[in-house]
């Protein structure tokens, strides 16, 4: 097994836990001394990890937004003068909330890149590989860190930010790109575009490693992407609030997303009781950052539903625990429809099973007092009697898999929006109707 940083990745567990505690203590001191926001929230006298989780309140996105509204742009949150920042980012706003704004110092940014390096190296990326990052290169941090990490590792990077999908497909083939970073949604878009161009990505391109992040995805989507590209898709995730990549998928065990524990503490709490859950149990991920100096994070309630397992369940030699399957779904993405819990990934799982469907959008609406799912699906080459027959099959599969029969409407091919970043395919329009 090869590691980007074997010292950190294989540190004996007891030493790792001592390291985390020392780092946490210093991080807390820095925050209390320099950030009015944290000085208000972090009490004195935290002398153990147990005291930390008992005394420091959970941090919600609303807390950060309130601070930033009161004192824009960064609020009273920073622990350093923002003048030390070398870059600004903000959350994507796909949840409909105003964005959380952050800055990174030069050291913070090097660390963020290094956490990407850890993930990429584990996934088989090496110096001199040719890489393409198909990402919007805007305010959303997304794959910016991956770009810098690839340069840091000595790869050749093609920044494919403002290019159309056909050009990206041509670049993949012409330059025999080996490493590809993108969202699962955009990977699906490239598969569709390549097919229109008569390009067989698995045969004509040379992609070996794909880092597909920034969105939860269904297993079916992952398998479809892997088959079409003939490459392994690895999962990884970071957040703008934390700054860096906190987990990456291990090549040794599919779905095992190791937590970069020297730089982050990940608690998993029951979504209702807020009490810790054990290994193997679902809960919400709560993050504490141990490294970032400009904008620190303590006990951030992320809304991400995860299942943590001990490092011993993976045979790669890393001593970092892992999140099994990565982020399973978002707690705040779950919608109740006539008593049934529905998430975007559940809907995606059903629709990706229909090879005729190239893109979709779903919404929850109230029709004559009854909540229902409305699905718009693009299905090219489906005409005449085949159209209502396909709608009926989709509705039946929904009923069987999710328990709700939706209204299904076929729309013109290419009429639904495509995105290079976080796709939002489930829209709850019930509040709009009631407003």
């Amino acid at each position, binding site marked *: 097994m090869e*590691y980007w940083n074997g010292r950190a*990745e294989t540190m004996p567990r007891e030493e790792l836990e001592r390291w985390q505690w020392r780092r946490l203590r210093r991080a807390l001191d820095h925050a209390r001394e320099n950030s009015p926001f944290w000085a208000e929230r972090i009490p004195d006298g935290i002398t153990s990890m147990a005291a930390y989780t008992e005394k420091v309140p959970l941090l919600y996105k609303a807390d950060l937004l309130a601070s930033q509204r009161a004192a824009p742009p960064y609020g009273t949150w920073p622990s350093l003068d923002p003048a030390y920042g070398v870059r600004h980012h903000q959350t994507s706003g796909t949840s409909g909330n105003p964005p959380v704004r952050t800055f990174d110092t030069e*050291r913070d940014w090097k*660390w963020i890149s*290094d956490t990407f390096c850890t993930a990429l190296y584990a996934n088989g990326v090496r110096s001199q590989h040719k890489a393409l990052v198909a990402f919007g290169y805007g305010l959303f941090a997304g794959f910016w860190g991956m770009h810098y990490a690839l340069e840091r590792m000595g790869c050749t990077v093609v920044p494919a930010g403002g290019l159309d999908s056909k050009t990206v497909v041509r670049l993949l083939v012409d330059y025999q790109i080996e490493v590809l970073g993108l969202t699962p949604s955009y990977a699906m878009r490239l598969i569709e575009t390549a097919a229109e161009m008569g390009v067989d990505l698995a045969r004509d391109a040379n992609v070996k490693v794909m880092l597909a992040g920034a969105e939860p995805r269904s297993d079916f989507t992952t398998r479809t992407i892997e088959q079409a590209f003939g490459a392994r898709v690895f999962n990884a995730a970071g957040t703008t609030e934390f700054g860096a990549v906190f987990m990456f998928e291990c090549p040794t065990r599919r779905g095992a997303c190791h937590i970069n524990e*020297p730089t982050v503490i990940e608690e998993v709490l029951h979504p209702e009781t807020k009490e810790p859950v054990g290994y193997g149990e679902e809960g919400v991920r709560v993050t504490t950052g141990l490294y970032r100096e400009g904008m620190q994070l303590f006990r951030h309630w992320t809304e991400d539903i995860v299942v943590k397992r001990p490092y011993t369940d993976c045979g790669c030699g890393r001593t970092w625990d892992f999140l099994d399957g990565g982020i399973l779904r978002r707690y705040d993405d779950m919608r109740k429809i006539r008593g049934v819990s529905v998430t975007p990934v559940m809907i995606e799982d059903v629709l990706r099973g229909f090879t005729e469907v190239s893109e979709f959008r779903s919404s929850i609406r109230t029709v004559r007092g009854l909540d229902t799912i409305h699905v718009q699906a693009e299905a090219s080459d489906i005409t005449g009697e085949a159209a209502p027959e396909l709608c009926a099959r989709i509705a039946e599969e929904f009923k069987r898999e999710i328990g709700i029969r939706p209204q299904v409407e076929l729309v013109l091919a290419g009429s639904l929006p495509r995105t290079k970043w976080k796709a939002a395919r489930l829209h709850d329009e019930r509040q709009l109707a009631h407003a």
Partner: protein
Amino acid sequence: MTNDSSLTPEQRDRLLESYRTLVDLAGTCRVPAVFAALRGALAELRVALDGQGVELDDYYRPVGAGAGN
């Protein structure tokens, strides 16, 4: 195959010594081009030292704080 996972004690000491030397230099350097190089190099070295489990006294002091650059 496992690749090298840790520095030798001698390598670690030399890395730390390099870091200290550059911190001193950054504190007095007034040449913008050189200072920019020092700031970048120090940020990289901090990440490297951190990855090797080396703790620094000036952990949260930004490079060039108070240097007027």
